[in-house]
């Protein structure tokens, strides 16, 4: 096998395959790390997924992890696996730009709990990935570090705000990456880049040391190739953190052990409204086909009526906007020109929303969740919806920097199917389920009850046992 073939082969391993190969001594962490760094070097010009890489530190850590493996020590579930994450997860002394000009030189003096947990599980971090400025756009645009490009088509959006995470995983540069999700920012790039991504239940994962956007709606979660890979990372990062008093004390199950493939009798809900309204034909067709796959595995497909969708859409649009505008107020007064047009433009109206209305949106959130859960999850186990309602737009079609009124509308519509789950706080995964007429991946969302990540992952894994959408390689992943 020549060097290029060997690197490609290593990069095509899934996260769980890579971890098991290291544990068995079939491959070293240094070899995986060198392969990942070579993949970034060769593919980056096509995706622009990276803000910074620390090659020396990564190779040094990989060598130390290899020494530990050779010593016979007990290994963590991610031992030796190189990862890279959205550039908003603090590591003491390391750069964390948050995709912004304002924090271009920001080096926090403490580390995020999720980073500590990933490192304690044996993974190493290659660097920080491109992202929407301050995690506030659904498309992948970034005027400061350059737009992120889709590995399936250079001119298309990657989805955001975890744009680099979606592109780097979709280009097979890394096996997995952390993203964050306030209105769809894990699920959108997962869907559009043809990978798997899960937004956990609100409060399921610690947010200590993670750049905030909206305290009520922010979530930390992984993007990876498979549901199994996501399950492994979720088992590592989920659970109460004393440093984040908002994190839940709900026990964390072994998510990977729940992936039995057996979904017989599982009720999959098909919504009667909203999520498929005016959907692109091929999105609807891929959705229908995906339901047939689940049905063939023994799931039962049931129609469900969705309550409160108007309230969810209205309230959901206000909460994160008010909270984002609040924490950025000082910079919005002092240096608005240092924000991208779409970002300052979006935050601006947040300063005029009455506090009574923001609080109404929060006050009714619990009651609306109770109604939604009773009526929807009283009739089904999981709600299935398309991640995006329309085919993937191009970067040009959604650029507020250069586009007109239609760009604003297209931009805002990208996240129309993902935002409701943030207001409701529900665990939701996006898995690949086909391609649109332009050859761009299509995503299927599966949402469950609060703290039902195990069931969501189980259904997603079962789907991936019978399909190969997640295993298809993007044109950039074929490069070397």
């Amino acid at each position: 096998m020549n060097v290029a073939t060997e690197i490609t082969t290593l990069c095509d391993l899934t996260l769980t395959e890579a971890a098991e190969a290291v544990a068995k001594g079939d491959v070293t962490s240094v070899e995986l790390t060198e392969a990942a760094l070579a993949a970034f070097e060769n593919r980056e010009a096509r995706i622009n997924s990276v803000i910074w890489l620390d090659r020396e530190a990564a190779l040094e850590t990989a060598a130390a992890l290899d020494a530990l493996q050779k010593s016979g020590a007990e290994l963590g579930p991610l031992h030796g696996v190189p990862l890279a994450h959205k550039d908003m997860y603090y590591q003491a002394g390391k750069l964390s730009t948050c995709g912004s000009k304002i924090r271009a030189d920001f080096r926090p003096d403490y580390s995020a709990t999720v980073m500590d947990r990933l490192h304690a599980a044996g993974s190493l971090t290659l660097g920080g990935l491109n992202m929407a400025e301050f995690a506030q756009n659904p498309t992948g645009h970034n005027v400061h570090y350059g737009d992120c490009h889709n590995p399936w088509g250079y001119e298309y959006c990657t989805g955001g705000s975890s744009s680099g995470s979606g592109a780097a995983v979709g280009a097979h540069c890394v096996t997995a990456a952390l993203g964050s999700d306030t209105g769809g920012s894990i699920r959108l790039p997962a869907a559009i880049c043809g990978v798997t991504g899960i937004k956990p239940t609100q409060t399921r994962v610690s947010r200590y040391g993670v750049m905030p956007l909206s305290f009520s709606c922010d979530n930390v979660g992984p993007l990876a190739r498979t549901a199994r890979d996501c399950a492994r990372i979720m088992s590592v990062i989920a659970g109460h953190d004393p440093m984040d008093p908002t994190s839940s004390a709900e026990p964390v199950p072994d998510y990977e052990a729940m992936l039995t493939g057996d979904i017989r009798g599982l009720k999959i809900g098909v919504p009667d409204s909203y999520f498929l309204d005016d959907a692109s034909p091929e999105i609807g067709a891929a959705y229908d086909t995906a339901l047939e796959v689940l049905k063939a595995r023994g799931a039962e497909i049931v129609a469900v009526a969705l309550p409160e969708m108007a309230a969810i859409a209205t309230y959901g649009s206000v909460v994160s906007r008010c909270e984002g505008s609040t924490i950025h107020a000082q910079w919005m007064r002092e240096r608005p020109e240092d924000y991208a047009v779409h970002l300052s433009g979006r935050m601006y109206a947040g300063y005029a929303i009455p506090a009574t209305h923001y609080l109404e949106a929060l006050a009714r959130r619990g009651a609306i969740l109770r109604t939604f859960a009773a009526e929807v999850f009283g009739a089904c186990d999981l709600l299935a919806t398309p991640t995006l309602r329309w085919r993937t737009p191009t970067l040009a079609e959604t650029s507020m920097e250069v586009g007109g009124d239609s760009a604003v509308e297209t931009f805002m519509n990208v996240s129309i199917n993902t935002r409701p789950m943030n207001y409701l706080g529900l665990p939701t995964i996006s898995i690949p389920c086909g391609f649109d007429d332009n050859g761009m991946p299509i995503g299927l969302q599966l949402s469950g009850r609060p703290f039902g990540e195990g069931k969501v992952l189980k259904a997603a894994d079962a789907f991936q046992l019978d399909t190969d959408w997640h295993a298809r390689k993007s044109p950039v992943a074929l490069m070397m």
Partner: protein
Amino acid sequence: MSEKIARLVEEVAGAWSSVTPPNQPAVLLASQMEATISGFTAERGRMRFEEEPSSFEAALQATKEGTA
């Protein structure tokens, strides 16, 4: 109506927060607040006087997996 909303946003954001319209898309997005206002108007009457503060976290627990 949209222009009126945009002017209102400018006045309120300026008066309360000293934030001025940063660009033209900001003004356009501000004018679209009309739809959000309509959304709130449609919900009027459903926000009742609360004897005790509601809790979203309590609702997450009450509706969690395994509670069906």
